[in-house]
């Protein structure tokens, strides 16, 4: 029952159609159209506060769109009832910016949490599954630690193991590299790519880290001023002439994205004659 995709090929896993969304009066995304194809890693880039994370929240419907449709596996999640929405969320995994581990549960219990909530598996089987997931992120030995005892990079890997516990079809990563040291960053990037290919899933990585994201993504989409301004392969983005993409890739302080927050003219503020 999937609607045929405009490209005529296999239907995209996620599709945003003319989505407008915001918080209160402030519109963050305006008429956004975006497709995520099966099996790819899509890098979603843009300035901080530009609406990247909002796209992730829309897909899991943690916020409501003002207008437009958000399709996940051909189903418009904006119209789903509570049960159906929870059913759809079970097929998604989300890695939050700082992991969002349950601080009152051990590493093991954190990863076991979705299994215990959603399945009737026995403790033996849950133990095996949890250790397999932890092994996949290299933290089998950390199972008995509490979240307060692991580093930021480890916490995110634990959260990753928890997010893949129910074998999702789609993984959403919210700033997976923010605040990590170079080693942890490399580990995280490799894990995202490897998990995507090994599990045959689709991934969306929200990040503003150009190097790491370009290295692992099949496709990049740039979001600025509430809309998708450019998309293509990392190579195409590197060669792009779009001034905003250029500013971002070359890390220029001033350009289409202004260095100065909008203000009265400097002359007026400093009370000097122009």
């Amino acid at each position, binding site marked *: 029952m999937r609607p045929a995709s405009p490209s005529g090929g296999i239907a995209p896993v996620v599709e945003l159609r003319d989505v407008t969304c915001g918080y209160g009066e402030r519109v963050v995304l305006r008429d956004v159209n975006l497709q995520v194809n099966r099996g790819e890693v899509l890098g979603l880039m843009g300035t901080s506060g530009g609406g990247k994370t909002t796209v992730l929240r829309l897909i*899991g419907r*943690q916020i409501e769109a003002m207008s437009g449709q958000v399709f996940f596996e051909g189903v418009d999640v904006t119209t789903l009832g509570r049960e159906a929405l*929870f*059913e759809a*969320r*079970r097929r*998604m995994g*989300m890695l*939050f*910016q*700082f992991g*969002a*581990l*349950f*601080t009152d549960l051990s590493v093991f219990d954190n990863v076991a*949490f*979705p299994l215990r*909530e*959603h399945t009737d598996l026995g403790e033996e089987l849950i133990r095996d599954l949890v250790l397999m997931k932890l092994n996949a992120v290299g933290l089998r030995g950390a199972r008995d630690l509490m979240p307060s005892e692991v580093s930021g990079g480890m916490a995110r890997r634990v*959260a990753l193991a*928890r997010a893949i516990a*129910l074998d999702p079809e789609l993984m959403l990563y919210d700033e997976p590299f923010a605040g990590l040291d170079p080693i942890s960053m490399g580990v995280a990037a490799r894990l995202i790519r490897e998990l995507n290919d090994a599990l045959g899933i689709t991934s969306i990585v929200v990040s503003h880290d150009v190097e790491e994201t370009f290295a692992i993504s099949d496709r990049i989409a740039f979001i600025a001023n509430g809309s998708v301004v450019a998309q293509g392969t990392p190579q195409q983005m590197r060669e792009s002439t779009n001034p905003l993409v250029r500013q971002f890739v070359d890390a220029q302080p001033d350009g289409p994205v202004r260095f100065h927050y909008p203000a009265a003219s400097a002359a007026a503020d400093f009370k000097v004659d122009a």
Partner: protein
Amino acid sequence: MSWWRPSDVGFATRVKLADIGRAARLFTRLCALFLAALRRARLLVDQVHFLGNHSLAIITVSGLFVGFVLGLQGYYTLQRYGSAEALGLLVALSLVRELGPVVTALLFAGRAGTSLTAEIGLMKAGEQLAAMEMMAVDPVQRVLAPRFWGGVVAMPLLAAVFSAVGILGGWLVGVVLIGVDSGSFWSQMQNGVDVFKDVGNGVVKSLVFGFTVTFVALLQGYECQPTPEGVSRATTRTVVIASLAVLGLDFVLTAMMFSV
């Protein structure tokens, strides 16, 4: 300062009404989740333990001292009319009808309510509640409901402990220290305290306070701004709102229960 425009008044009213509506919806959902909370007995028992057992120290010590004071003050007043042997009755009625439920609720708001608010608020700030939602687990059912019913169960039990220890305190001061006749102390109490009218109504009061304090604490945590100052403000609001609600409700309940 400029004058409020009518539109501002309208907006503020709408925001307030929406707040009340959200609170009412959360309250009905929590009440409806009673059976669900029972099914996850493990979580419920953990919360009764956490909210109840961990409040026992402050409740017993406070109960004892309130009992001491009641014994002293009651004796001074009663002996003026030559009826010091009614001390047992006075201590028991004061505790069972009023001080047990009310003081326990106030202490419970400070001891357990604040920790509930801070816990839920920090879970929200750390995106733990959002993460749970994305795992298709309803935080209201998984996190809030066991705490709500845990608080409702713990409160009458704590109030009972408070009253019992308080009566013991009154006995220690009145009988052991001052020398009121032990036999009349207990027999007056036995004759004068009615199981349903006094003890029963006290239990109803503490149940109502249990609903009130726990709900206020959970609501403040759940609705707080997920920032350090947001959590700290919510924690303060929990104590203020819960205490005022308890005192206000106590007057209403007393008027309804003990009117002749």
